[in-house]
């Protein structure tokens, strides 16, 4: 238990720092940035308390907001994704989720990618809707969501492959 708590704390801090110091300065093609801190929410252990996940997501989003001066957009998107995570877990993992036996270190590649892709799309859509905050610019929102999502999904999958513990 202690081990997993300290592991989560280290992951939290590492993802915030990597996000604000490296991945926010990518600015691919001028404006495309990946938001990889969402991996913290994606790979938070399933059997842990959901309330803790929601609260920690709020904290990680708020820390990112503090560094980026973006108000509360990251906090809102993270909390939203953390709350609807079970809805995404179900179609991605099927029966494994219903038996409460999803272990992120032992799932096959395909379902991992679909799971991350769903999560990232929802997160980015909420994020950019709140950032741009105008219904008349819906095309700009969708454009940013699409491009940033592709970038985030690619990087997230790569990172999760590199840092996954057991090699199958």
């Amino acid at each position, binding site marked *: 238990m202690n081990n997993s708590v300290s592991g989560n704390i280290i992951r939290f801090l590492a993802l915030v720092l990597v996000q604000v110091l490296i991945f926010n300065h990518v600015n691919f093609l001028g404006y495309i940035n990946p938001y990889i801190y969402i991996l913290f929410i994606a790979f938070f252990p399933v059997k842990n308390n959901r309330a803790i996940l929601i*609260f920690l997501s709020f904290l990680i989003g708020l820390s990112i907001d503090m560094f980026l001066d973006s*108000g509360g957009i990251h906090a809102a998107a993270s909390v939203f994704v953390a709350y609807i995570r079970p809805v995404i877990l179900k179609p991605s993992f099927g029966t494994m989720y219903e038996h409460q036996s999803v272990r992120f270190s032992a799932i096959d590649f395909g379902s991992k990618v679909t799971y991350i892709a769903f999560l990232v799309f929802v997160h980015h859509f909420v994020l950019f809707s709140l950032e741009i905050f105008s219904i008349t610019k819906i095309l700009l929102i969708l454009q940013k969501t699409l491009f940033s999502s592709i970038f985030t999904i690619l990087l997230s999958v790569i990172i999760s492959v590199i840092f996954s513990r057991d090699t199958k």
Partner: protein
Amino acid sequence: MQQIINFIIRNKNFLLFLLLFFVSIVFTIQSHSYHKSKFINSANFLSGGIYNSVNNISDYFNLKTQNQLLSEENNRLRALLFNSNINIDSTFTDTLSFGKSYKFYTANIIKNSYSLTDNILLINRGKKDSIKQDFGVITTQGIVGIIDKSSTRYSTVISILNTTSSISAGLKRTIHFGSLEWDGKDPQIIQLIDVPINANVKEGDTIVTSGQSSIFPKGIPIGTVLDFKNDIAENFYEINVKLFNDMTNLEHVYVIENMHREEINNLLNE
């Protein structure tokens, strides 16, 4: 009572979600209104300190271009100084600020941002260096933004690349002016709106600050006219301005304090 408690326990995840989501939305709405963001900004001890120490390292990467810019400015100022007949006496320093209406402070950008629609920068000067809200920020080439929040050592700057910012600017050739806003698309191009139709704008005209606000002095360069069109009512021009500044590569900036700002504002608010 029992039922209410039961309800809360049963739906505690949903209620927690609602509460935290509501708090985030409040922060978001605050950040979208000018000068309202209260709690969450990067001008604090933690994020300011981290950005500052990282910037100490990343400074070195574009040292050469920054030196080039500064020496070009020195060159220009030196030419100005020696060609005008100002008495240069370096042994005499005027410690009083009599007759001066603008005071300049140097600062470094430690967090740049240009890819969002509401960009906010961070500089390494704060209340300790007597930086306050609503001071202007410029570089050697053009304007950057306006100071928003100050902590002891750091301040946030509302960039001109921010959809909430609005700065009074006009044509250098005539005295017509409008307000400078950004549509959130291209970090090189900014929009000047509400310029009267009889201003006779031409492509390539220089746009400068108008001096109508108490923030920037008159005549600070902004950019050149890229193209222009009439707005729907055909009474005003909408002008696309290409910035002189490269907003993606900022390092050394100057903060401007208008010594008469309070007096002007008092008069306007009367």
